[in-house]
């Protein structure tokens, strides 16, 4: 493998697309989050209609060997319902903001899903046996005469078709005044944090009536509010460390060992602003929409409107790498402001793959016109791919896309003006152990896999 983001011998190819083909997209069907579980065996999506759909990896078999990127529906359930807060006269949308899987603890799978206010813990379990035989009913369900019972029958378990059940195990409610933007399971396997615009709470996974407020940036006077929390995540190995990003483009790292309240950060990551590029939009586009630790926990990645930055936790004054996602939009900020696109919250994800000799790092994040970008940290190559119905033939190779930036448009290039800003890819996920990716394009979920020639 010479680099997942393009190269002579490495290509991405189409594997599957989920969701309706209709041009007419129902609002409720728009995918709002995508997440693989720890093994990559399951893939969960949440949508604006409050539903969670879980896909399971298709088992490979001798006669169907190329199923690495094939996922089939495993379970679908309604996680959140629309609600109304009568005290504040506020509608609470059912939209799933985030899904996080828990490390597997027994044969069942668990995930946390959240909308703006309420976090729920779901259990997804299988059942393949059914009890049979009643005392008071016969096989056809007819009642027996209660006075003719001559012996007792103990029910016997019989095999049945596999049934997958999703059951709500816990509901963590009433702890957030503002909208929840992140949830993150801690590496101690017993706590998780949830962040809204102004506060971060720490929960025990088994306790629903109590959470600890660990960060509170709400000023006494709301008119003095200058920044909000945009994302938060726990360190993958150190259970005491978490980070949160702000709308000012900064990231704070906090150590829960130091004090019970983490109002004071222990590290503060900020890149000094270039005064020459300062504009009306500077603050808006520097707002961080997502923050993710690398699997090793040594690095973290942040996404702002135009770029992805990789930070070394040991260096606070600037990122170690910066990747431009769609720099050509810098001249379009005014119209993107007018159509509100400038406030889109793009997420980003890591891929870390290593063998004994190679250590590969790649980054994926979304853009407009159903484009998504990949950056290879080793080779510094990048690639733009498109999730579209046109190239959705089985195992069809994805052609790299190019947006023309200069005056002249070459063949195969797309002009900036013809980009469709309604087709945005905000959510993507990378299989934890394999080169399989899931890309959410409005109401469709695309799954791609690598193809080595």
């Amino acid at each position, binding site marked *: 493998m010479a680099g997942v983001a393009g190269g002579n011998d490495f290509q991405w190819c189409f594997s599957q697309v989920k969701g309706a083909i209709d041009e007419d997209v129902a609002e409720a069907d728009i995918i709002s989050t995508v997440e693989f579980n720890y093994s990559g065996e399951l893939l969960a999506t949440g949508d604006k209609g409050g539903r969670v759909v879980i896909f399971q990896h298709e088992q490979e078999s001798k006669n169907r060997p190329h199923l690495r990127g094939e996922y089939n529906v495993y379970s679908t359930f309604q996680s959140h319902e629309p609600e109304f807060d009568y005290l504040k006269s506020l509608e609470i949308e059912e939209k799933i903001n985030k899904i996080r899987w828990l*490390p*597997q*603890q*027994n*044969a*069942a799978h*668990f995930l946390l899903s959240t909308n703006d206010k309420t976090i729920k813990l779901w*259990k997804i*379990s299988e*059942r393949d*046996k059914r*009890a049979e035989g*009643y*005392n*008071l*009913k016969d096989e056809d369900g007819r009642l027996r*005469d*209660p*006075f*003719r*019972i*001559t*012996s*007792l*029958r*103990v*029910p*016997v*378990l019989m095999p049945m078709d596999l049934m997958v*059940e999703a059951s709500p*195990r816990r509901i963590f409610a009433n702890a957030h005044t503002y909208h929840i933007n992140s949830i993150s399971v801690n*590496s*101690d*396997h*017993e706590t998780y944090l949830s962040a809204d615009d102004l506060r971060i709470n720490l929960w025990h996974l*088994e306790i629903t009536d109590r959470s600890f407020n660990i960060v509170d940036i709400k000023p006494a006077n709301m008119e003095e509010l200058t920044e909000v929390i945009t994302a938060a995540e726990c360190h993958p*190995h*150190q*259970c*005491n460390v978490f980070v949160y990003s702000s709308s000012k483009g900064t990231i704070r790292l906090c150590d*829960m*060992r*130091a*004090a*019970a309240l983490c109002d004071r950060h222990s590290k503060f990551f900020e890149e000094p602003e270039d005064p020459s590029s300062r504009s009306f939009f500077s603050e808006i586009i520097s707002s961080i929409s997502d923050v993710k630790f690398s699997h090793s926990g040594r690095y973290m990645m942040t996404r702002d409107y135009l770029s992805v930055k990789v930070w070394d936790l040991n260096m606070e004054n600037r990122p170690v790498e910066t990747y431009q996602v769609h720099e050509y939009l810098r001249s379009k900020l005014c119209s993107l402001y007018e159509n509100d696109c400038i406030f889109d919250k793009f997420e980003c994800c890591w891929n870390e793959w290593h063998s004994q000799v190679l250590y590969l790092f790649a980054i994926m994040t979304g853009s407009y016109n159903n484009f998504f970008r990949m950056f290879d940290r080793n080779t510094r190559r990048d690639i733009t791919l498109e999730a579209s119905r046109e190239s959705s033939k089985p195992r069809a190779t994805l052609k790299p896309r190019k947006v023309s930036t200069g005056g002249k448009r070459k063949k195969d290039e797309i002009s900036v003006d013809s980009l469709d800003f309604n087709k945005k890819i905000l959510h993507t996920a990378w299989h934890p152990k394999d080169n399989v990716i899931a890309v959410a394009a409005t109401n469709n979920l695309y799954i791609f896999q690598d193809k080595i020639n």
Partner: protein
Amino acid sequence: MAGADGDDSLYPIAVLIDELRNEDVQLRLNSIKKLSTIALALGVERTRTELLPFLTDTIYDEDEVLLALAEQLGNFTMLVGGPEYVHCLLPPLESLATVEETVVRDKAVESLRKISQEHSPVDLEVHFEPLVKRLASGDWFTSRTSACGLFSVCYPRVSSTVKAEIRQHFRTLCSDDTPMVRRAAASKLGEFAKVLELDYVKSDIISLFTALASDEQDSVRLLAVEACVSIATLLPQEDLETLVMPTLRQAAEDKSWRVRYMVADKFSELQKAVGPEITKNDLVPAFQNLLKDCEAEVRAAAANKVKEFCENLPEDNREQIIMTHILPCVKELVSDTNQHVKSALASVIMGLSTILGKDNTIEHLLPLFLAQLKDECPEVRLNIISNLDCVNEVIGIRQLSQSLLPAIVELAEDAKWRVRLAIIEYMPLLAGQLGVEFFDEKLNTLCMAWLIDHVYAIREAATCNLMKLVEKFGAEWAQNTIVPKVLGMANDPNYLHRMTTLFCINVIVHCCGYPYREITTKQMLPVVLKMSNDQVANVRFNVAKSLQKIGPVLDSNALQTEVKPVLEKLASDTDMDVKYFAQEAISVLALA
């Protein structure tokens, strides 16, 4: 009756068995709770071959059903045929020990521990110990955490080769990949150490303890502190210094406040476990540091232990240690920036007076008490007031009364009703300590003022307080000081206050009782009867309720001539509730 061959005694059992699978959780739960009845009817043979296999696979159910099942199975030995067959219970409990719900797992482990005692030594090795091994090497951490709780029950009763295996398994779990399992192992370390031979405690347990106490996750390290207590108790004094103390010192200065908090929280236990010498040399400075910790949570936990720690210091130089080492820290805590710290301290600081004696208390502690009585946080003041009895014994309460009174008055008028409620609850105690004259002079007005508080909970508590005061000071006192004021309220323009009169009369009658029939008949009854003409229905039906309570104290003449006509009138009231309660009173007092 039809069906000569039917046995109607089987019917209820048949229902129970069918309801094991009812859709209603409550019915399933009900059936599971009567599992012993089902087993008894089936007999030991069928319980073993049919019921238990069915139960083993029912782990899909709701937590509360599984919890009940796990509990039932712990008491099932006789129902499967006695100790000889007790191992039949292992499969269902094994599957329950792997569910994700901690309470269910813990209950399954508890039942497993229970039935392990009913295994013969042979069965223990043939059936029980393999189960422990299976759980300990399970794929999922739920089963491995459950295993941690089972080592200590089988260890003492197995052969030395199996013992070696068990130690090995425990060692493996202590360095498990998942923090969940390491935490489970750390929390059972002390218990396991207790059943091990002393040599193994020194060779095995100490190294595991040291490793867990320096685990990368603080959630594991803090559990090692608890283990420290049990391990220190097991070791001879001369080994403590080398085997335990380095780890304990490290924990007391851990980078994570949660670990230091745990040390503070377990300080009294640690102190007892390590003995007086180490306490003097090591724990006193450690305790000082915890009292000065930079994290308020830690200071609060340490402040909570001040009294207990001082009490348990070796008596020969206890006073000197407290005066030179502890008291200076305590003085600083009195003006701590965090109110939880101050309030934790306030809840124990009075206890120091008994340890230090009269002179030291007056000279050193009294200024602190007085400062805390003036604290801005009501909880601090309340905590001081609630512990007044300790000081009273040593120096008498008069020393404090100058500052006490303003503090009480301020709390009594606090804007938060919960604060007012809290101080009311201490009134009877204060009244007892301060004596009747002081009370009449200074506090009586407060007690009466609460009766017309605008919060119902306060009025209710004030009424209840009156009852306690009357119990303390007697009926005569009630007649002279309370009754006139209470009766005066009967003419209040606010109907809520008029109702308070009735509530007070109810409790006073209850306390003064029969011997003081005079007060009831002469003073209170007329007022109550007069109130039956009140224009507010709520007052009228409370008159009916009051009469029902007063009735038994009155003589039959008063009942017939005075109470009966009024109740009869109320029984034909236009208001439904008034009618209802009047009729109830008539029937209870047998006036019909």
